[in-house]
């Protein structure tokens, strides 16, 4: 290739040869082909069973439950997150300390333990759920704890409270990213702090909060599979219910995985468009495509 660098002088430009990369690509491609061939010849997955169960009513019901519990736990998490973020930033030391403890505790223990705690631990210790005036015998309403702590209730408590702790830190980061001058301007106009938070700070914090909420939701779609241990009939639970009677273990795990991949893929594409709306004018939004966002989400391994 000839390139004219200065008048009268022509140079030949030789691009860097990346031999290492080419070798690596060949090795990886061979490994993948070998794995695929081994998988295909071992007959460890029966594709007919997979396609037969893909739209089984029990599985589709589990899929709906997964979507429902993920969205509901996310909403609980966001509401709790906003409350605890504001509490943690409060000048009231009791509020800040309670919030700090909540975040420390729920982020510091496994969600799986929390789920089992709500489902098995709480009804074992507290036999009755009562609503009344504390420290008195006045009770407005009471019910047996086992009746209240259904698999769904335990799943929502476990996943929602855990999510709230992560969300609190995300929301706090978003609030801290809002310029102090905004609060000052709002106060100078006569707004009290709750008005300032609601009308001025939180709407601006949204720009910062929205992308990680998308990540959290995609993560939640997968984490919700842990609700299977408290017998909530979500996707994984339904798959395992089926394979424990027909013994097509791998096929049903493949069915569940296909649906999880479908959910996270759709959510990733949705996230791309939502982020694009909220990040208008910033350079990252322009660079990314739905595809690169998807790759980014799949490559990111859990949390």
């Amino acid at each position, binding site marked *: 290739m000839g390139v004219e660098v200065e008048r009268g002088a022509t140079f030949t430009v030789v691009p860097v040869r990346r031999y290492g990369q080419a070798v690596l690509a060949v090795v990886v491609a061979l490994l993948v082909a070998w794995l695929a061939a081994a998988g295909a010849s071992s007959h460890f997955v029966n594709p007919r069973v997979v396609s037969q169960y893909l739209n089984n009513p029990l599985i589709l019901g589990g899929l709906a439950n997964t979507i429902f519990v993920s969205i509901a736990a996310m909403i609980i998490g966001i509401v709790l997150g906003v409350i605890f973020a504001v509490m943690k930033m409060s000048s009231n030391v009791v509020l800040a300390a309670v919030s700090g403890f909540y975040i420390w505790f729920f982020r510091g223990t496994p969600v799986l333990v929390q789920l089992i705690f709500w489902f098995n631990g709480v009804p074992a210790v507290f036999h009755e759920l009562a609503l009344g005036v504390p420290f008195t015998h006045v009770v407005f309403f009471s019910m047996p704890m086992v009746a209240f702590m259904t698999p769904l209730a335990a799943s929502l408590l476990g996943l929602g409270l855990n999510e709230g702790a992560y969300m609190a830190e995300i929301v706090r980061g978003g609030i801290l990213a809002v*310029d102090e001058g905004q609060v*000052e301007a*709002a106060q*100078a*106009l*006569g707004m009290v702090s709750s008005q300032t938070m609601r*009308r*001025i700070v939180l709407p*601006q914090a949204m720009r910062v909060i929205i992308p990680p909420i998308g990540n959290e939701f995609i993560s939640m779609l997968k984490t919700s599979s842990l609700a299977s241990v408290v017998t909530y009939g979500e996707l994984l639970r339904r798959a395992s219910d089926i394979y424990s009677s027909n013994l097509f273990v791998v096929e049903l795990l493949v069915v569940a995985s296909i649906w999880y991949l479908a959910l996270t893929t759709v959510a990733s594409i949705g996230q791309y468009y939502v982020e694009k709306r909220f990040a208008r004018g910033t350079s990252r939004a322009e660079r990314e495509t739905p595809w690169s966002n998807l790759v980014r989400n799949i490559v990111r391994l859990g949390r």
Partner: protein
Amino acid sequence: MSAPAPQPARFMVRAEGVHKRFGRLEVLRGIDLAVRPREVMMLIGPSGSGKSTFLRCINHLEKINAGRIWVDGELVGYRQVGSTLYELNEHEQARRRSEIGMVFQRFNLFPHMTALQNVIEAPMLVKRTARAQAVERARQLLERVGLAEKADAYPSQLSGGQQQRVAIARALAMDPKLMLFDEPTSALDPELVGEVLAVMRQLANDGMTMIVVTHEMQFAREVGDRVVFMDGGVVVEEGPPAEVLTNPKQERTRGFLARIL
């Protein structure tokens, strides 16, 4: 604190021995000042002399450590009943602040709202003005600062000078009895300073009581009724602009003016 004598509102702002500390740093070290209704006071002084801090004390964005400030006869931060002073709660404090307009060096417009929304937000939220009424008033104010056609623009779509004029309209929408300006033109490109000063000049002519921190000496001379020179947290010299800016009595004033002119 002993009971203060009742203050007739002869002064829009009156400060008496105001002290303010940030930790060890004593920023205001005994400020005494008075501003009459309809007066325009220009506050000048070197960086770090406490000008911004003093403005922020007037609308109680900062709490003073000693001394007293009255705005329109009412003690800032307190409610007086007989000889007892009750510290104001958040809502009472906010109501007092809503009667004082403030304009910032960096505009601080709400970026997620259009110019019009910026102007109607506080009247609707704080004063519970009906939307239609707030919008009508906001359009008048935007007209007054020369931005009627920019009502639907977001702050990021406006020049610095336009943003600052929206910020002035936003403050005026609360019908303040006093306007505080903290270096309103310092963040502007030189060619945009004039349009903001023109709006302020108009406001002064209309009889608004104003305290203006500024480095625009020509503007201070033409529009100010009085110039106050602050340095090191105290008032060093004050008087009519012609005197303070042309024939300063104090050595520190002379040094400051020589440096910035």
